[in-house]
């Protein structure tokens, strides 16, 4: 997983507020924590099943599915 890519935070910032799932193939990770550092966008969709199916296209096998929309004020009861 040494391929370059765009920083994950930068990708999420670009799609911020679109109320969709951004599916990202992770291309590099922090060697200590295994947390994703860079990646490439595979799909942007509001449909959760579609997002899951798109994630299977990640050739590295390591994917992220992130919601880019309102997250503030989440209360779980």
């Amino acid at each position, binding site marked *: 997983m040494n391929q370059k890519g765009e920083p994950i935070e930068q990708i999420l910032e670009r799609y911020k507020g679109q*109320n969709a*799932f951004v*599916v990202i193939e*992770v291309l590099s*990770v922090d060697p200590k*924590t*295994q*947390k*994703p550092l860079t990646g490439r966008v595979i799909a942007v969709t509001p449909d*959760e*099943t579609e*997002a*899951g*199916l*798109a*994630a*299977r296209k*990640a050739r*590295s*096998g*390591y*994917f992220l*599915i992130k*919601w880019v*929309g*309102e*997250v503030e004020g*989440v209360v*779980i*009861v």
Partner: protein
Amino acid sequence: MPIVPFDPTSRLIQVTVMVSDGLMTALTVLVDTRAGRTGFRRSTLIGLGIDVDASEQTIRLNTASESLIVPVVNLPLLRVFGVDFRDLPVLCLSLPPTVPADGVLGFDVLSRFRLFVNYRRGLIVAEPFNGLWDRAKFLYQVAKAM
């Protein structure tokens, strides 16, 4: 297991776990001490290659706000706080997209650990119930996290 940090300002305990259906993938999950079972988002399970619609097992899930039937699927490998769970039955959850996590850790997994949470500092200490040595390690880590 080292002390695991979380963001106390998010008002949720979010931690990273590793899952595998071949290659290891890091996911963000909520430590949910009220949940009975561990579960993951539908999209996450599908992305891992698990066919959630083919699941033959379902369970009635009673939450604080609703009751619904959800599929149960086997997760080949889940690594939580350094401990591996193989072929763990997990729930396929319809978490609202606004919940900032890929799933929740419930009692079935959390009950395998001694847990200490320092909400103010945003630290969680977790050690498996593996005997006196782990108990001693846990107490040492708790002292550091105080």
